[in-house]
């Protein structure tokens, strides 16, 4: 597609439940990035993929967070046993390549509320 599509737009989970977020990158883009935007607008980098391979996962909380980008499927970010502090807006971005300007195009985000 011509834009990064994220689903669902809103997700409500009870503490301890699983949450799964999806992202379809722009067609032809090789790189996918996940960010978490918490209160006060802070963006935190979580993980990036080059096609289906993890490129950089230095921002991922390893215990409960996992992500995949499989061929011919939307990318996904899964949080096992959600905690209250996981409440945030999760953004996915895609870029065509990593050289030079590396312009990232963002989706509209998924707002996760953990109650």
């Amino acid at each position: 597609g011509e834009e990064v599509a994220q689903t669902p737009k809103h997700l409500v989970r009870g503490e301890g439940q699983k949450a799964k977020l999806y992202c379809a990158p722009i067609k032809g883009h090789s790189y996918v990035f996940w960010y978490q935007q918490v209160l006060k607008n802070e963006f935190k980098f979580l993980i990036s993929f080059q096609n289906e391979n993890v490129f950089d996962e230095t921002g991922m909380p390893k215990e409960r967070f996992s992500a995949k980008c499989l061929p011919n499927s939307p990318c996904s970010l899964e949080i096992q046993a959600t905690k209250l502090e996981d409440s945030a807006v999760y953004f996915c971005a895609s870029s065509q390549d990593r050289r030079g300007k590396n312009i990232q195009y963002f989706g509209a985000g998924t707002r996760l509320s953990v109650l």
Partner: protein
Amino acid sequence: TQLLEQSPQFLSIQEGENLTVYCNSSSVFSSLQWYRQEPGEGPVLLVTVVTGGEVKKLKRLTFQFGDARKDSSLHITAAQPGDTGLYLCAGLATQGGSEKLVFGKGTKLTVNP
């Protein structure tokens, strides 16, 4: 860890006034991007500056990249209510072969009619 300090965090001005938003860091970035984010939406790229000292203009918006590629500014001339929004700077950081965007905390701009 590379950090970007963005200021001011909040700005409320009257229509027609000028304003400048700053992003500063002690680290060098490959490039710096400015985004605008509306409530309930993702950031939308306004401009990318790559070369030290580069100046780019987008109508009433002027973007500048510092000579040392550690800082940047966004200047808006004759602000209008339609300029209201969250402005984010993001530096492209290269670490160990990986590139990722490092975001400032944003400037929430309100332009009053």
